[in-house]
């Protein structure tokens, strides 16, 4: 009995053996699989796990503000929030509808559309609302909606509305400047984007187990412009009123500080809505251009100031130098006539400019010869960008015998002398006018006064380019410009409080095929006050429908601007106690 039992214990049951073998095989399989997952495919699964746990977020800093010269903000950034919805969490239609309803109650919009955006996205998350204010974001956060998270960003605000729209420009959805100062000074206003990595749990909630984040970049620098919001607004209002009154197609007004070259106002019409620039319509892209620097036009009679300056500075003529106006001036086969086809007989150079006689300007340029005339044109900065630092600035077109020996003809000298056959930008024209008012010293126009960054500020100093003409020649011209103003009908230019100086311009518009349109550009280039000039103003109105004369269309706007600015500057009027 004992023997049998002992024998049974020693002989293992084959079933147990098979089971053990199976278990061993299963364990071996598990071990092999674990080896495959944890050793052979370690990198793949490790990265997949990290991808699930970690998420990269962009960290943006505050974009710098754009301020006027007195520190009033023209463009500022405030925190704004985009609402992201995780697609998987909103798969349950009932819960999604409830969450969407709450979200719409805070951010506005349509609940059905919002749900469709969230669930129809091909990505893990979808942006369902943009640019929420801080208060709205707070409400969304407190609502604790499933699958909803907020992404911080910023929104550009313009406290002065559309003031200086073309100059300031606008930013895109990615907060990058697209036009104007916003684009030109992108690297100054914005210090870029840095990345931050956060860890999250299975529900997408942020965990704080790892400090794998980055630090936010430094805030962008604030830019102080030379623009004065009061003068800018004044210029825009006057421009808008003049365009409306004369049914013009557009226009430009620039106000320049003659002593420094600082641009106090730069207004162009038509403009656009800074808050909602229409990028969908390509035909409206031209509205975003800063016409004061990109638009080239034939300046017309205003350019006679340059011809006169050249004549006085070269010593060839004086204000009382006589000449005879027969009403025509012949150059090769071409005949130059006055704008009113008049013949004025014995005249002086002062009368030439005061009456704006084309024949006289042609005579004077002929007296100087092309080399001397174009030398003065270049001295005033025509034919090259002024160097404000604003992008898209045109150089203007000045053909000279040396720059275009085949195309240039003798008649070009005559037509150029009264501002036809060459093109300039409004900024070039007002800068040249500023030089005459500044004793002949040409200053570089500039629009950025100061950059205030986190590490300190950088102040931009005025820069003299060159002495274009002598102070004596400049004074002579100023006196003649005062004669021009005094000879205008008081109905259009009457500012008894201040003594002003200026020159009218009425220019034909070239078609591009050598002929001219039936429409005109009316302009007035003025300086105020006469004794100690402070500002130079160019008013340019494109294609007025009623009358073409600069004295009627542009001079009244100059008069109102000059009076208001001088009052604003606290410059005492004539007869003050």
């Amino acid at each position, binding site marked *: 009995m004992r023997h049998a039992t002992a024998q049974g214990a020693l002989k293992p049951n084959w079933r147990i053996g098979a089971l053990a073998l199976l278990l061993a095989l299963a364990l071996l399989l598990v071990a092999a699989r674990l080896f495959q997952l944890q050793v052979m495919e370690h990198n793949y699964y490790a990265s997949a796990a990290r991808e699930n746990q970690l998420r990269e977020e962009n960290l943006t800093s*505050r974009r710098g503000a754009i301020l006027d010269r007195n*520190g009033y*903000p023209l463009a500022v950034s405030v925190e704004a929030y985009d609402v992201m919805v995780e697609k998987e969490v909103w798969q349950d239609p009932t819960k999604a509808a409830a969450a969407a309803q709450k979200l719409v109650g805070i951010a506005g919009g349509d609940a059905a559309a919002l749900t469709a955006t969230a669930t129809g996205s091909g990505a893990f998350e979808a942006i369902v609302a943009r640019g929420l*204010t801080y208060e709205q974001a707070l409400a969304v956060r407190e609502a604790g909606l499933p699958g909803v998270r907020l992404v911080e960003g910023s929104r550009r605000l313009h406290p002065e509305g559309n003031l200086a729209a073309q100059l300031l420009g606008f930013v895109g959805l990615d907060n990058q400047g697209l036009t104007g100062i916003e684009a030109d000074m992108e690297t100054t206003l914005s210090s870029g984007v840095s990345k931050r990595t956060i860890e999250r749990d299975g529900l997408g909630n942020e965990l704080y187990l790892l400090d794998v984040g980055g630090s936010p970049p430094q805030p962008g620098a604030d830019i102080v412009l030379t623009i004065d919001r009061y003068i800018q607004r004044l210029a825009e209002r006057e421009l808008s009123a003049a365009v409306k009154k004369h049914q013009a197609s557009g226009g430009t007004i620039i106000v320049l500080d003659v002593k420094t070259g600082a641009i106090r106002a730069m207004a162009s019409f038509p403009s656009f809505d800074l808050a909602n620039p229409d990028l969908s319509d390509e035909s409206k892209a031209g509205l975003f251009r800063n016409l004061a620097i990109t638009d080239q036009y034939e300046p017309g009679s205003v350019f006679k100031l340059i011809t006169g300056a050249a004549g006085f500075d070269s010593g060839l003529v004086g204000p009382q130098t006589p000449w005879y106006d027969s009403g025509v001036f012949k150059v090769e086969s071409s005949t130059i006539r006055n704008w009113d086809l008049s013949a004025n007989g014995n005249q002086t150079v002062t009368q030439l400019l005061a009456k704006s006689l084309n024949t006289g300007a042609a005579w004077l340029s002929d007296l100087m010869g092309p080399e001397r005339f174009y030398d003065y044109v270049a001295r005033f900065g025509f034919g090259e960008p002024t160097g404000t630092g604003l992008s898209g600035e045109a150089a203007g077109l000045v053909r000279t015998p040396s720059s275009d020996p085949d195309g240039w003809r003798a008649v070009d000298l005559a037509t150029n002398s009264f501002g036809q056959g060459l093109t300039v930008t409004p900024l070039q024209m007002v800068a040249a006018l500023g030089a005459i008012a500044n004793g002949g010293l040409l200053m570089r126009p500039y629009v950025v006064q100061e950059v205030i960054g986190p590490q300190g500020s950088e102040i931009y100093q005025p820069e003299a380019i060159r002495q274009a003409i002598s102070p004596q020649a400049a004074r002579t011209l100023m006196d003649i410009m005062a004669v021009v103003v005094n000879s205008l009908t008081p109905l259009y230019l009457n500012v008894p409080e201040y003594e002003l100086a200026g020159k009218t311009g009425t220019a034909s518009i070239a078609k591009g095929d050598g002929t001219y349109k039936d429409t005109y550009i009316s302009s007035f280039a003025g300086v105020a006050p006469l004794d100690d000039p402070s500002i130079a103003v160019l008013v340019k109105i494109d294609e007025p429908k009623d009358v073409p004369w600069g004295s009627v269309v542009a001079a009244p706007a100059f008069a109102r601007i000059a009076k208001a600015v001088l009052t604003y500057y*606290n410059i005492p009027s004539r007869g003050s106690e």
Partner: protein
Amino acid sequence: MTANPRAARAHGLDRLLRSPSMPVLLALALAAIGIAALLPLLQSSWATTTNGHIHELEREKVDWQARVQELEASTAALSSLDRIEKEATDRLKMVYPAKTIYITVPAQAPEEASLPPRLLGPGQETTPTDKPWWERALGWLP
């Protein structure tokens, strides 16, 4: 009389093991090892908690910054020329002057309005040396 030294050492070890303090010592050692093993866990927990607090404070800072920016934007909107003109003409019934009269007075002009402090660079702050000595001396008082 002469005792075997090996036997004496074995006896001593046996006594030590049998002494009532040994289990206590072992338990203490085990507890110490256990606590030491827990330390990294505790440290990790504290680090996580601190990290959470930092994130919470950062969020709070961002919130305050957002509020400050909102207030700055509100201030800017309130000081806009359009609003000032509207308030002046609509609420205060003001009109533009027909004529501006200048009277020269023998007084110093007021200081020009400067930029808001936020926008001033570090180099533009006024120094206390501008003040008279007695005012600077008063500044030392608690």
